[in-house]
Structure formats: structure tokens, C-alpha cells
């Protein structure tokens, strides 16, 4: 397994000692391989490995089993450094309404996550409503209606309306008048080559002025994650990331790379299709799972 190969390389390195060039080379290769197999961006993986080499070879390390533990903890710390050590909560205003907006690549899980967040926020005592500015995907409005009906949260959508800014403004205005104080805006999927859609996303952002923009990232994303996330963050001020589909075989290295590219914290993970499958992000368990 992934974890056992890396642990074996670490054991060989420990028993060989710092002077053993071959053991160091083996360790670096196994570390790099573990990170790449977990979908960590190629450049980031190489940087992490050279950082670990620097720190584990120059530090005054205790011998034996505790040195093995410290090599593992150094790898761990390098990855957690990218993700941030503390828990960053989702924006919840207490003195005025909160509006958050979800963006991301086609099929990443935005609509499902919108409903999950609605339930999460509703449990915290807010009066939650959902607006969908996706007038493009067939059945998008019905999908959100069906999801939100499970938690008795109202949904506004207008698939016949060609202008997404108009849909968003109308829905938000309606819900603010009805005294809803937390509004979640779902948008259509898009990727970095679709320049018109990126412009539309930015247009929505500047007209709606949400309190937080969340980039939804599919946990299966591979080596393309970094540049996609970078393009989104350059176009619109992304505040955080939610990683989805971590209930499959994906290790989430793409999401770590996306967080590095956008320079934002990961706030939640999605680990299932139901409306309850949303977990607050824990960097330690995320990295533990990534390293196998």
C-alpha cells in the first residue's frame, strides 16, 4: 500500500543513517511518489520533498524510533503548513444578512454542497434561503428544489430568465424582504477556458457583492487542479475551498494544490451524496489520509 512503501523507505533511511546517500535518495523517491499518487501538484510535491530533506537532515534528530516519528512529522508539518493549522469558520454575520456564493468546475458538487451548507447554517439558528443563478443546466432548479425541500429551505430560481445577475438580484431581494438572513447563491459550472463564463462569474460577484465566495473542488482532481484554481482566484476573490467526493478512492492532493494556488483555507469536506455529508475541515486528518 502507499503508506507502507513510504514507511519502509523511512525505516531504511533511519537504519542507514544520515550519511547513507542511497537511503536518502530512496526516501525522497518514495515520498515524492506518495505525494504524486495522492494527486499533489508536481511542483508542490517536489518542493515539499526538498524541504523535508533539508529539515530532516540538518535538524538535531534523536536516534532510533523517535527519529522515524520526526521524519513523518516533518512531512506532515510541510503539508499542514500549506493548508493552515487552525479551523477557519465559514462567514456568518450576526449584525446583518450573510450572502455566500459557490463557484467551481462542472460537476464538482456545487449544487449538492449548496444544500449541505444550507442545512449546516440552519442548524446554527439562521433563517436560510437558496438562490440558483444556474439558468443553463437542465434540471438545475429542480435539483436544488428537491434537495432543499428535505430541510424546508426555500429556493428561488428562474431558468427561463437569460440574465443570471437579474435572477440573483431578484432572488436575494425577495428573500431579504422576507427577513431571511443567510442566502446561499449556487452558480453554473465553468472551467478556465470558458472566458465568457468566467466573465459572467465576475459580473455576478461585482453586482451581488457576496460576503464569501467558495470554490468547490472535486476531490478527484489531478495535476490540472493548481492552474484551474489559480484561474478562478485571479478572476474573482475566492475566500475558501470546499473539497467534495472524499468518500471515494481519491486522496485529495488536487484540493491541497488548489488551496495552495488560491492561497485560501479549505473549510469543509464533502464525503457523500446526502445533505448530511458535510464535515468541518481538519488538516491533520486530511493530511493523514493523503499520506496513507
Amino acid at each position, binding site marked *: 500500500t502507499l503508506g507502507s512503501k513510504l514507511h519502509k523507505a523511512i525505516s531504511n533511511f533511519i537504519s542507514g543513517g544520515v550519511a547513507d546517500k542511497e537511503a536518502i535518495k530512496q526516501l525522497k523517491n518514495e515520498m515524492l*511518489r506518495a505525494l*504524486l*499518487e*495522492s*494527486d499533489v501538484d*508536481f511542483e508542490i510535491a517536489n518542493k515539499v520533498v526538498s524541504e523535508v530533506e533539508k529539515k530532516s537532515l540538518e535538524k538535531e534528530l534523536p536516534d532510533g524510533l523517535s527519529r522515524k516519528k520526526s521524519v513523518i512529522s516533518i512531512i506532515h508539518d510541510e503539508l499542514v503548513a500549506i493548508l493552515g493549522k487552525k479551523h477557519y469558520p465559514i462567514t456568518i454575520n450576526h449584525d446583518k444578512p450573510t450572502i455566500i456564493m459557490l463557484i467551481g*468546475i*462542472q*460537476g*464538482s*458538487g456545487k449544487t*449538492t454542497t449548496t444544500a449541505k451548507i444550507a442545512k449546516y447554517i440552519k442548524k446554527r439558528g439562521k433563517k436560510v434561503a437558496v438562490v440558483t443563478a444556474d439558468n*443553463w*443546466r*437542465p*434540471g*438545475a432548479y*429542480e*435539483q*436544488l*428544489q*428537491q*434537495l432543499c425541500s428535505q430541510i424546508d429551505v426555500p429556493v428561488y430560481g428562474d431558468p427561463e430568465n437569460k440574465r443570471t445577475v437579474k435572477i440573483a438580484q431578484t432572488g436575494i431581494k425577495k428573500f431579504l424582504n422576507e427577513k431571511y438572513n443567510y442566502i446561499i447563491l449556487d452558480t453554473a459550472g465553468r*472551467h*478556465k*477556458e470558458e472566458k465568457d463564463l468566467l466573465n459572467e462569474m465576475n459580473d455576478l460577484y461585482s453586482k451581488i457583492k457576496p460576503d464569501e465566495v467558495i470554490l468547490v473542488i*472535486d476531490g*478527484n*482532481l*489531478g*495535476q*490540472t*487542479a493548481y*492552474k*484551474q484554481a489559480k484561474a478562478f482566484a485571479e478572476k474573482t476573490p475566492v475566500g475558501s475551498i470546499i473539497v467534495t*467526493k472524499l*468518500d*471515494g*478512492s*481519491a*486522496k485529495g*492532493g*488536487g484540493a491541497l494544490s488548489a488551496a495552495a494556488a488560491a492561497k485560501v483555507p479549505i473549510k469543509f469536506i464533502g464525503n457523500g*451524496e446526502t445533505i448530511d455529508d458535510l464535515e468541518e475541515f481538519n488538516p491533520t486528518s486530511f493530511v493523514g489520509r493523503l499520506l496513507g
Partner: protein
Amino acid sequence: IKKVIHPLKDILIQNEVAVVTADKICESVSDKLLNVEYKRMSSPKSLILEALRSSLLEILQPEETIDLLSLVEEYKKKKQPLVIAFFGINGVGKTLSIAKLGYYLKKNDISSVFAASDTFRAGSIQQLEQHAKKVGVKIISQTYGSDAAAVAFDAVSHASAKGIDVVLIDTAGRMETNKNLMAELQKLDRVVEPDLKIFVGDALTGNSLVSQAELFNSKIGIDASIINKMDADVKGGATISVVHATRKPILFIGVGQKYNDLKPFIPEQIIKNVLP
């Protein structure tokens, strides 16, 4: 040779090929290099690149190919509908691919019917209904929570009775590691016995693509793949990982969200991206 192969592995990985797939490609390239006759005119670099090119070409051009239109003609002669099932993990483009295929078949004067066998996900039936309406084909559906295999079976019976050429079965997205959902798909396979089983994958996927291809192949069987979102600035290594894992052809690639964004897979385009 080992020294020379290592940078190749990095190139493959940076071109989105899965790590285990890159390993196997490098093994095959080293084998080729061990057996090659060193002609005085060719530089080592060109020998290596040639070995890589031929390894990739071998992978991307599997022995079996599928000509969909002639397969349809074959079934028309048998007076039987061609039944095609689409499966894969969540959000990879199964439903849109069915709409695109229905549109493609219609342009070629081939009739089809959609089977709404995703009876689980919110909005899935309405989504496929709206696609069916836009494309101009019939859809067979029941209610949410109904049996996926029963809906598919219904659609096949309908197609046989009405002389419809092709049945396109949409299924719910599922993680290949979810035993219950894979068992549900196996049941649909047993009940309906599709003539073509299509694995649908996302070109942006990393290493989990190999696990997806392997598990769907071992539990259900894959006759061909469709890889979507190839328009998202990808190098296309995902296609290499999938064809390597399944040894089955790529039926089409998805290059956008419109109905005509379904294109044939051309190995040369991927090789051109990978070969420096």
C-alpha cells in the same frame, strides 16, 4: 537506461497520466530500448522519444475498435435494439453524454430512447427529460426511488415493441468503492444485459481514474469509454490511464457542453501533447 527513463516518468505525470500507468509505460519503454539496434545516425534522445511514441501509440490504439454506426446497422438487421448503458462516478458527464449521443444518432437517422435509470439523485429525471425534449427523443422513466434495472428493462421492451434502434441507459453516479452501489449496477447488468457498457470518466481526474476503470471493469465490464471535459485545458493523460487500464477503445471524447461537443478520440493529439 534507468537514468534516462526517470525524466520520462515525470513528463508523463505532468501530462496527467496516473503514477502506476506512468510506471508501466516506462517499463515498456525500457524493454524497447534494451532491444533496439543502435543505428549510428540516431541520437539517444531520438531513440528514447521514438520508444515512448511507439509505446503510447500501442496503448492508445487497442486491438478492439468500435464503429458505433455500423454496430447499429448490424442490430437493425437483427431487428433488435442496441442497448447501451453508461456508468461512472458522480459528475463526470454521463447524462450529458447520453443527450449528445442521442443527438448524434438522430443526425444519422437513427432513433433512440432514453432510460432514466438514475432514480436516486435529486433532479436527475427532470434533467434527462429536458434533454430528451431538446434532442427530440422519447424517454422512459418512473418515479424517484423506483428500481433502476426495472426502468432500463422497461425502456428495452419499449424499444423492441416500437422498433427503436438504440436504448441509452442513464445510471446514477457512484463511487467505484461503494459496494452497495456497485451491486446495484451489477443487478442492472444482469437484468438488462446491455450490448455496450460504457465507462464515463472526467479528463481532469487524477490517480483515482485507474481505480475507477479497474473496479468498473472487474465488477461490470467495460466495452468502451467516454472521457469528458477535454476542453478544460488538459494534456489528456487521463485517456492514456483509462485505455491502459481497460485495453478498450475510447468511443468519444466530450469537448464542451453543447450537443455537438462529442468528438472522436485521436491518439495523435494526446501524443503530441506528451512528447516534448
